[in-house]
């Protein structure tokens, strides 16, 4: 070691801070000062092992030893046990990279999350950052799209559209101005992979957007960031500033002749703005009502110009696809679902967190092996995959492999990879009602099936559970769901019926007349 300072890594992402990591950092600092211990605190991002947060690591002989979850009250005890030398303690988790939760993952897009200091561009570059963009700058402009084609990468925001086709469309469309719009409006309940990537490894997103810009001939990018992520905003702002300072952004990037700039726009707390055309409206400063398609945003997008709209994780997957080659990425996954997806385990689960794995693993494996079952210890009753518009799966469907097509066959949706677990205290009629209520709150109002259907949906479910014309209303609810699916302009109204229908199909007993709707 060059100096005898003991390095301590204390995460600074929203989740770790929400569990007190800043206070822990303060406490460690003050005790170290009192005891004359020579330490250096590094505020890294999160490894995504949320259930261990705050996960503190001590660097001993170049190995990172983990302790977690550490609260302020544990700090004195940790010092007493000799955690600065990596000694055992009840919160001792061993070497970070050997923790099974992490070790058994297939980290690709998230490989630097937790490892590095998200505020340090040097740190990013020394762990392989900007290799992908450098390759592109030394190759033909089409190199990026070629590698994406080979990789089979599909949009990670939820729709799963092949990324290379989108990029190629924008590249092939003639225009004096084109844009890259990064969708960072991660509104699905139970999803936080965009947040973790932005807060733990922001330069990966910046690099991915720059690659997109150069590949299609766009010199300007926007990150549409949800207002619920104030910390991600700070981290991204710093990353953009740092990248500009050393010419990884700005004019004539690394003397390549290409220009690329990025601005961040904050959303207004509207779920539907995660839909790409509503997002474009919002980026233009307007109400986030959706647009008719066609024209596709790739042809007429932001301010009427050809625009790539990609999710954070999609763009964040790009740098390593370029640096390691598209074929290396496509070796992961199954069928038409290539590569990895960062699943996010949450809700009533013992070990929640981010689990990046190749497609093809079953839902049950993730919930049992990684999640460790429910937090309450009760049986798993229902699992919602893919956010508020995703179906509720009962136990009998948990062996479905996580693959876009396998899920749609079961009327489910992988979406953005959120997995929310419920134990048997849940009332599924309440959840169905909430799906409709949420749609009524968040509908942009442009099309009738979504705007009015959702309100009627809440009323009909209330009638069913209070036994008012039960059979008739059940039929009505089914009809309403079909109308919303077939008649809505976008996924908001078009997919809301899926959680409702799945609740009805798999948990009909919860729709019996009941007085526990408040549950």
């Amino acid at each position, binding site marked *: 070691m060059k100096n005898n300072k003991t390095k301590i890594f204390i995460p600074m992402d*929203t*989740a770790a*801070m*929400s*569990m007190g990591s800043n206070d822990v950092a303060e406490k460690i600092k003050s005790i170290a000062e009192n005891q004359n211990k020579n330490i250096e605190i590094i505020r890294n991002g999160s490894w995504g092992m*949320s*259930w261990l*947060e705050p996960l503190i690591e001590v660097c001993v002989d170049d190995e990172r030893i983990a302790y977690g979850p550490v609260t302020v009250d544990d700090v004195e005890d940790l010092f007493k046990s000799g955690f600065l030398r990596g000694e055992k303690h009840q919160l001792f988790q061993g070497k970070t990279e050997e923790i099974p939760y992490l070790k058994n993952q297939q980290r690709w897009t998230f490989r630097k999350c937790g490892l590095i200091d998200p505020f340090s561009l040097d740190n990013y570059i020394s762990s392989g950052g900007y290799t992908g963009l450098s390759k592109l700058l030394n190759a033909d402009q089409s190199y990026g799209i070629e590698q994406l084609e080979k990789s089979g990468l599909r949009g990670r925001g939820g729709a799963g559209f092949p990324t290379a086709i989108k990029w190629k469309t924008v590249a092939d469309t003639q225009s004096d101005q084109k844009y890259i719009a990064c969708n960072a409006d*991660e*509104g*699905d*309940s*139970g*999803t*936080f992979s*965009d*947040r973790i990537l932005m807060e733990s490894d922001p330069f990966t997103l910046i690099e991915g957007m720059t690659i997109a810009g150069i590949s299609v001939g766009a010199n300007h990018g926007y990150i549409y960031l949800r*207002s*619920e*992520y*104030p910390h991600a905003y700070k981290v991204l702002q710093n990353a953009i500033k740092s990248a500009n300072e050393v010419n990884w952004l700005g004019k004539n990037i690394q003397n390549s002749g290409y220009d690329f700039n990025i601005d961040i*726009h*904050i*959303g*207004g*707390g*509207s*779920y539907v703005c995660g839909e790409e055309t509503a997002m474009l409206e*919002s*980026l*233009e*400063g*307007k*109400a*986030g*009502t959706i647009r008719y398609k066609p024209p596709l945003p790739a042809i007429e997008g932001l*301010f009427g110009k050809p625009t790539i709209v990609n999710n954070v994780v999609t763009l964040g997957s790009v740098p390593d696809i370029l640096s390691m080659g598209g074929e290396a990425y496509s070796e992961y996954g199954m069928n038409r679902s290539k590569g990895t997806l960062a699943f*996010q*385990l*949450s*809700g*009533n*689960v013992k070990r*929640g*967190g981010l689990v990046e794995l190749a497609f093809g693993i079953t839902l049950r494996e993730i919930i049992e092996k990684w999640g460790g079952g429910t937090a309450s210890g009760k049986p798993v009753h229902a699992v919602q995959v893919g956010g*508020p518009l995703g179906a509720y799966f009962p136990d009998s469907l948990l062996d479905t492999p996580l693959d876009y097509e396998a899920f749609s066959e079961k009327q489910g949706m992988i979406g953005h990879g*959120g997995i*929310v*677990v*419920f*134990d048997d205290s*849940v009332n599924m009629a309440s*959840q169905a009602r*909430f799906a409709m209520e*949420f749609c009524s*709150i*968040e509908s*942009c109002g442009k099309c009738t099936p979504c705007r009015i259907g959702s309100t009627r949906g809440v009323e009909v479910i209330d009638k069913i559970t209070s036994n008012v014309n039960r059979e008739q209303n059940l039929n009505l609810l089914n009809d309403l769901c079909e109308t919303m699916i077939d008649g809505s302009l976008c996924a908001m109204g078009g997919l809301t019926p899926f959680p409702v229908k799945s609740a009805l199909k798999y948990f009909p007993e919860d729709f019996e007349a009941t007085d526990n709707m*408040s*549950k």
Partner: protein
Amino acid sequence: MKNKFDHEIALAIIHKVGARPEMLVQILHAIVKEFTYVNESAIRLIAKEINLTRAEVHGVVSFYHDFRTHPAGKRIIKICQSEACQAMGSRELTSHAEKTLGIELHETSENAEHTLEPVYCLGNCAHSPAVMINDKVYGKVDKEKFNQLVKSE
């Protein structure tokens, strides 16, 4: 001074963010950050400065949940109402908060101490239920932790 609309400050904000129609959502955020809400005077001023009609500005204000039109209290408490938090008792937590603070969601207490609002996902789903108080997120908030949070800070 928060909560009191000031023409000069608002004007400066609009021009700092950028007096262009595409910056409207960003301008409104900055106005809410300064005054906690958007009032009629702000709408008039913004409309004039970025050359939109008042109706157009009003339409944007009313579309987004973030742009409240009444002053907020000292502590803006947002409780996540989404599924992952529901699975860990956010409905009970919300009832508890309403009872404890004597206000319902979307309301501000009479002494202007607390504003209670729903939020649909804070991205802290693995630490549900999640609560945000003035931009700071808290995880695994049970009734006791909630009581502490609204007392301290």
